């Protein structure tokens, strides 16, 4: 019994060493998801945070200016649901666009399809940025 609990303790210690999860490791990706780039900014990675923020914000707003569509959940269409998954990656920007009713109009130019992709990719890039903020917070990346 004692040997078994000792083994479990050793395994837990090894896991903690390999994956040192801390409070910042949880907060940084969440903040980074809500406000693109903020996950890096709260860790004082100013330049990286600003560049990520500018990139994601620009892609999202260029997408909206190109009359791209912002997907809504539960439309019943699988492709639209996948679009929603991409869009929700933008966090606060997605919420803002839903509140302001942006990206809901009828598409009447061909370039609007590019805009829709810009909005989705902005969300996906923001998820990558949030994961990067997590990696920095737990010390896996400098």
């Amino acid at each position, binding site marked *: 019994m004692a040997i078994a609990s000792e083994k479990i303790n050793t395994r837990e210690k090894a896991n903690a060493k390999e994956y040192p999860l801390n409070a910042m490791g949880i907060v940084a990706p969440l903040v980074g998801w809500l406000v693109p780039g903020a996950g890096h900014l709260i860790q004082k990675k100013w330049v990286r945070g600003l560049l990520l923020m500018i990139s994601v914000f620009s892609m999202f707003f*260029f997408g909206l200016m190109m009359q791209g569509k912002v997907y809504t959940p539960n439309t019943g269409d699988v492709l639209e649901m996948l679009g929603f998954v991409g869009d929700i990656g933008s966090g606060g920007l997605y919420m803002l666009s839903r509140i302001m009713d942006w990206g809901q109009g009828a598409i009447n130019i061909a370039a609007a399809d590019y805009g829709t992709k810009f909005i989705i990719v902005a969300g996906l890039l923001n998820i990558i940025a949030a994961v990067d903020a997590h990696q920095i917070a737990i010390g896996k990346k400098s």
Partner: protein
Amino acid sequence: MNIHLQLSHFTAALLFAFFASIVFGITQKEGVREQFRYGVKCFVWLNEALKD
């Protein structure tokens, strides 16, 4: 949104590649020099892929 932008395929591809390569450069590599080099590489690759 009231501002309307109509871009050509090439301009849209350039913008897409520019912003995406900034994020890829920062997130996929360590060290400023490596990040910059990877960002430039991504920009070139994405433009090659998207321009046709």
